[in-house]
C-alpha cells in the first residue's frame, strides 16, 4: 500500500471511528433491594454536571427478571430548594433494558433525588447526586474553534507543498 493511500485510509478510519463508536455509558449510581424489586440507577454524564443529564433505572424482580410495567418518577431537590419532576420511560431510553429520564439540571451542587416506583408493588428510594459546575458554552465553542484552525493549517500546508512541488 502506498504511503499516500495509507494516510488517506488512516484519516478516513480515524474520522469514521470517532463517529462510529457511540456506545452506551453511564455510572452505576446505586443498586438496592426495595420490597420485591431490585433497583439499579445509572447516571450520565460522568462526572455529573449541571446541564442536560440522564437518570436511567433498571427494575428487576426477585428472579432477576426485568420488570417494565412500572411507573418511575423522579423528584430532584437542590440545596437552594429548586424542584424538578420527571417521569422515566422506556421510550426515551436508547438502551431499552432501562427506563430513562432526561433532565436539565439548572445548578451545580448536591441534589436530593426521590424516586417513586409504582407497579404491582410500590417502592420509594432516596439518594443524593452531586453535580459539578456546567460546562460553559464557551468551552464547546473553544473546542469547535479547533476545526477551522486545523483546516486552515491543512490548507496552508497544502499550498506550501504545491509550491514546493
Amino acid at each position: 500500500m502506498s504511503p499516500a493511500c495509507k494516510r488517506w485510509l488512516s484519516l478516513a478510519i480515524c474520522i469514521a471511528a470517532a463517529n462510529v463508536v457511540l456506545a452506551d455509558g453511564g455510572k452505576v449510581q446505586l443498586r438496592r433491594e426495595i420490597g420485591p424489586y431490585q433497583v439499579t440507577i445509572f447516571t450520565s454524564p460522568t462526572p455529573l454536571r449541571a446541564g442536560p443529564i440522564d437518570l436511567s433505572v433498571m427494575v428487576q424482580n426477585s428472579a432477576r427478571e426485568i420488570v417494565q410495567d412500572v411507573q418511575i418518577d423522579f423528584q430532584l431537590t437542590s440545596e437552594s430548594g429548586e424542584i424538578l419532576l420527571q417521569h422515566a420511560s422506556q421510550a426515551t431510553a436508547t438502551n431499552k433494558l432501562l427506563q430513562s429520564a432526561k433532565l436539565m439540571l439548572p445548578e451545580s451542587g448536591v441534589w436530593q433525588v426521590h424516586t417513586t416506583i409504582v407497579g404491582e408493588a410500590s417502592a420509594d428510594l432516596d439518594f443524593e447526586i452531586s453535580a459539578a459546575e456546567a460546562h460553559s458554552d464557551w468551552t464547546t465553542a473553544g473546542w469547535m474553534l479547533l476545526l477551522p484552525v486545523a483546516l486552515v493549517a491543512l490548507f496552508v500546508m497544502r499550498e506550501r507543498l504545491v509550491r514546493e512541488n
Partner: protein
Amino acid sequence: MNADFLSAISSSWQFSPSILFALVVSGWIYFRGWRSLRQRGSSRFPPWRLGAFFASLLTIFVALQSPLDALAPFSLQIHMVQHLLLMIVAPPLVWLAAPELPLLIGLPKWLRDEWIRPFARWRRLRLALAWIFRPQVAWIAFTATIWIWHAPYCYQLALESNFWHRVEHAMFLMASLLFWHPVMQPFPLRTTYSRWLLVPYLFLAGVQGTILSGILTFSHRVLYPHYAAAPNLWNITPLVDQSLAGAVMWIPTSLAYVIALFWIVAEQMSSGKAIAKRDGKYRSVTPAHRSPQPLGPRPSIWAPLLERRVVRLTLRWIMFTLAALIILDGLLGPQISALNLAGVAPWIHWRAILVISLIVGGNFFCAVCPFTVLRSVAKKFNLQYSFPKSLQNKWPSVALLALFFWAYEAFSLWDRPAWTALIVIGFFAVALLFDLLFVQAPFCKYVCPIGQFNFVQSLVSPSEVAVRSPDVCAGCRTRDCLAGNEQIAGCQLSLFVPKKQGNLDCTFCLDCADACPHQNITLVQLRPGVDLVSDAARSGVGRYSQRIDLAALIVVLLFAALLNAAWMTAPLVSLEETLTAAIGWGRLPIVTGGMLLGLLAAPFFLMQLLGKASLAMSAETADWRAPVMRFAPALIPLGLGMWLAHYSFHLFTSADSLLWATQRMANDHLATNFLIGGGVCSCCTAGSIAWLLPLELLFLDVGLCMSLWAAYRIAQREQPIPQIVLRTFAPWAIFLVIFFVACVWVLLQPMEMRGAYVAGL
C-alpha cells in the same frame, strides 16, 4: 428470560446518525471506486472484495449499534464479544477488500487532485506513515492498546464515560487495523521484509493475548468494579462473568492468530509457486472491455427527480396548497402564533428547510414556487410591457430585502399570523400582476426577496442547470432553451444555458430542459463554491466583479444573517428595551435606527474600509468599490453558515410546533380530538440540546473556512505575486474572522423563543 427482557433487547438497536453517515459514506465511496475499477477492466477487484468491505461495515455496525451494545454494560462477556468484532473480524475484512485504490478512486476527482495528491507526495509524511505501518510498530501499538484499555482504571473509565468509551473503541479498531495490515498484505502493498517475520509477530501476539485472557479467567477478584455493581441479568456472579469473558477473549483470538500463522507458513513454504501463480493469473487476464463513460458533466443525484415535469408540477401544486392553508389559518385561526400554521410553518419550518435544501441541492424552492403557479394563465393575458431598464438590476431587491428585515423586526411578523397570511397573499398578487404586465419574469429576477436570497445562497450549492454536451449546442441553431418554442417557453430569466455558469438568477425551473429539442439540459453536479471564485462572463449576469448591485445584495444578506439572529438574543432585546424606555417614542424608531445602522450604514462603511485597505495593500489605484465587487462572493458561505445555524436552532427547538398547529387547525375545522402538550418554553439556549450548539458552530466553522478559501483564491486570481496575494487577502480574512466571532457570540447568547412552544427533543 422473561418477555419484557426479550422485547427490550430486540428493540435495542440503535441508529446513530453519525455512525450511519460514516458507514454509508465509506461504503458509497468504496462502491464508486470499485465500480470504476471494474469498468476499467481490473480483475483484481472481484465482487467478493466488495462483499468483504460491506461485511466489515456491517460488523462494525453490529458491534456498535446492535443489542450487544445494550447488554455490554451488564456483562463483561458481551462487552468482550463487541470488542472482538472490532478487533479480529472487521479489520481483516477491511484489508481483504484492498480498500486503497477503490477508496481513492471513489472520491471526487477535485478532492483527489487538490487535497490527496499534494500530501501523497510529501516525503516526510510518507516516511512517518511507513514507520507507523512497520510490523514492529504496529505490534507494539496493538499490544499497548489492548493492555492499557484492560487496566482496571481505564476499563472502568470507559464503562462510566461515553466519551472514553468511544475513544476506547476507536483505539481498538485503529490498532487492530494496524496489526492486521502486514498479515493481510492488502493489494498493492509489497513488503520489503520477509514474511517469515510474521511468524514471531503472530506468535508473540498470541502469547500476550493468552496472558491477558489468563488474568481475566483466573483472577480471584472482580477487576472492574462497574460489573460488581451492575444488575445481574443471568444469575451468574460477576466473577464467573469475568472468567467467561476471559475465555471468550482467549479462544477466538488464539484461533485467529493460529489461522493467520498457518496461512503465512503455508504461503511461505510454497512462496515461489504461489507468487508466480498469483502474478501469472493477473497478467494473463485480457483487459476487460471498458464501458464507455458518458460524456459531459455528471448528473446531480437530484436530476432523475426534478427532470420530470410532472414531478415539478405536482410539487408546485402541493406548495400552492400549503400556501393556501397558511393563508386560511392565518386569517381565520387564533392569533396565537405557536398554534397557527401561519405562525410556525413559514417562520420555523419553511425557512430552515429552505436553507438546508439550498445546501444539499440548490434553489429547489424556486423550482416549485407556489407564487408562479398561475404564470401560464397570466401569460395568456400578458400585456407585454418591458420592465424599466433602470430597474433591471438588484437594487430594487436590496431595498425590498432591507425593508423586509426591518418589517420582520419592527412588527414582530413571527408573532402575527394574520399579517403573515397577508404577506403571502401580497406575494401572490404582486407575482400575478408582474406576470400580467411584463415579459421575461422580472418578478423573479429583480423583485422577489425570497428569490434573491435563494439566488445568492445557491452560489455554493452542489448542483446547477447545465448542458450535457457543448458540442450539441454548437450545432444548434434554434436555441429553444432561451427563446422557447410553440409548446414550451424558454428561459424566462433570459439565461442562455450553454453560456450560463453557476446558479445566479436560475430558478431551477428546468423550462429550458423541457424546451431544448435535443434533451441536452439537465441538473449536473457542481463543485460547491467553485462559482464564487470564477469571474467568467455569464449569460444574463455578466461578471460578478462588475456588479456593484450584486455585491450590495450579498453584503446586506451577510449582515442580515447576523442581525436577524442577534435581535432575538437577551443582550440585544434588553438594549432595545432600555433605549425604548429612555427615549420614550416606542420601539419603532429604535428598530428602524438599529436596522438602518446594522443593515445599511455599518456594512457600507465597513466595505468602504475593506475596499480601501485592499487597494492600499496591493498598491492599486481604483475606486474602493472594485475590490468589494471582487471579494463580495467570498462572503456568501459565512453568511449561509449563520443563516443555517440560526434557522436550525428554531427548527430543532420547535419542530413539533407544526404538529400542534396542524392538530389545532384540524380540530377547528374537522372537530377532531385535539390535545396540546407543552406550553412552557424550556429551551432558550442552543446549549439546552446537547448536540445543537456544536452543530450550529459546525455550520459556522464550515462557512468561515469556505469563505476564507474563496477570498484567498480571489486574491490569487487578481494578483500574480504571492506576497501581494496575502496582503490583498489579509483585510478580508480579518473581517471574516471578526464577523465569525460576532456570530459565535450571538449563538452563545440566550435566545428569545419566538412564536414557538417547547422543544420536543
